[in-house]
């Protein structure tokens, strides 16, 4: 038996999320008295693959397949199902991101395996197998028993601490019977976001709301994000108004993020907004209304006009960083 963890790569490189997943899978394996095996699909060099060992993977299955060059959920599911069988995996771990969400549920049906989706902690127990997950859009958490032989978990990004170990992983070439005939998805065009840090990867997020008053007032907010090496985000009214692109919308219907630090600037803190950001480790609120509900969710607050506070805050951060 084993715990299998699917580690996505971005143009041949892993990122923090990949190591977070492996750290998590290694701990789950430890709970079950077994070992974690990482699965990588695509062109990743051996020295990059070996990094997964530093986070506890005993073995890395390196699967290269023409049929898996693009994400086709059926082909990926069939391929991963084969690896699960070969490695006798009893737990399969994915990221709770676009990739994980498109494969994990299909794999669930194929293997008749229960899914614990959006878990943010290690399983509460393994006999019975109970996981702790977000429910009611962050207004509650649920302890859910997974009753099947094989279990699938999708881990919330930035919810599990990296755990480096002195372990080395063996690298093994994987093979599957999936071929191109199975692939139904045709990719016509790809538009990559370049240059900027991805909102979902950012450890610091600086978000603005309607209290920013106009699209023209974003410069100091962007500057704050820049000096903190964070990403910018916004509330729903802001993206609806077209002040900022939709990709930046954090909240229930936008992106769900869980950075270490989230700045809510001119955001009142409607339930729907908090649903997308409440897993952030620290929230700083800056709002001119001292009764705004965002202050109930924040650990640190400033009551004041964002336009006046932001430039001073940027200066203060610059000063602190220069020390």
């Amino acid at each position, binding site marked *: 038996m084993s715990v299998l963890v699917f580690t996505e790569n971005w143009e041949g490189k892993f990122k923090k999320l990949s190591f977070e997943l492996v750290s998590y899978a290694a701990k789950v394996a430890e709970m079950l008295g077994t070992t974690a095996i990482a699965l990588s699909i695509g062109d990743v060099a051996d020295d990059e693959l070996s990094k997964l060992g530093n986070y506890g993977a005993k073995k890395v299955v390196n699967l290269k397949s023409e049929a898996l060059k693009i994400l086709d959920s059926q082909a990926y599911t069939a391929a991963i199902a084969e690896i699960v069988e070969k490695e006798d995996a009893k737990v399969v771990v994915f990221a709770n991101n676009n990739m994980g*969400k498109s494969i994990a*549920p299909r794999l669930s*049906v194929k293997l008749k395996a229960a899914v614990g989706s959006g878990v943010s902690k290690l399983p509460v127990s393994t006999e019975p197998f109970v996981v702790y997950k977000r429910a009611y859009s962050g207004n509650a958490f649920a302890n859910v028993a997974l009753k099947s032989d094989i279990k699938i978990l999708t881990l919330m990004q930035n919810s599990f601490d990296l755990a480096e170990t002195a372990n080395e992983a063996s690298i093994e070439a994987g093979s599957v019977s999936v071929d191109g005939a199975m692939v139904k998805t045709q990719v016509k065009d790809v538009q990559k976001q370049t240059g900027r840090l991805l909102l979902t990867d950012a450890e610091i997020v600086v978000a603005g709301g309607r209290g920013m008053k106009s699209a023209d007032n974003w410069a100091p907010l962007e500057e704050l994000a820049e000096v903190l090496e964070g990403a910018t985000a916004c509330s729903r009214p802001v993206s609806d108004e077209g002040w900022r692109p939709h990709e930046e919308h954090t909240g229930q219907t936008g992106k769900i993020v869980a950075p270490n630090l989230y700045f809510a600037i001119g955001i009142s803190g409607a339930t729907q907004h908090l649903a997308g950001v409440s897993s952030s480790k620290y929230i700083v609120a800056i709002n001119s209304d001292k009764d705004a509900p965002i202050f109930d969710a924040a650990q640190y*607050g400033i009551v004041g006009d964002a336009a006046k506070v932001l430039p001073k805050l940027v200066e203060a951060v610059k000063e602190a960083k220069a020390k």
Partner: protein
Amino acid sequence: MKILVCISNVPDTTTKVKFAENNTKFDPAGVQWVINPWDELALTRALELKDNSSAGVASVTVAHVGLATAEPTIRKALAIGADDAIRVNLEATDAYQVAAQLAEVIKNEQFDIVLCGIESSDFNGSTVGSMVAEFIGYPSVSAVSGLNIENGQSVITREIDGGKETVSVPSPFVAIVQKGIAKEPRIAAMRGIMQARKKQIKVVEPIAVDALTEVVSFEPPQPRAKCVFVDAEDPKQLVDLLQNEAKVI
């Protein structure tokens, strides 16, 4: 071309969430129920495609797995413009079980496009749409933020981590949709509400499928510490707290 939109019946997003029976069940007392926000956007997009004659959409059906108490929500979908509705008479507690029921509906009725919202705002599973696709062996595309039909071909925009892709899959397929699929949810007009009364909600009995999960208990989120206020004239103090107390910058 026939479109099916799978809808979930969820507490209004501003509901104060409470639990009953030793924190094992959601307490529905005083709760307003609505169409799950992403499903509502999916329905809106389906109706926009139907309105656009070049897309060739003949009908939009909604399907729901749940008890009769959900009928006002289904009626709302009909009032917004769905042509007809199917309700599978089963209390929805497990994604696998729900998906199996929807797959059965699709097998019996045949649709060209099946739309599901990315997640329900109650269980936050993000699983049902892709599960349905696997049950019936259809291709599925997740994280869909745009859907068009051009010359009978699907043109789909999907979000990937770090950008967007334009993809196409042959019909029939399942699209799991999210923000961007429609700008604002369509609202029922008085005429729609009147017409909805005459539209049919077909009730079917569930097939036997075991649930794979069971909620043991619900818990409130961890309470947060009280907000520490910093003088607006002195943001240095905030930076100091973030650096030395929270240690996040």
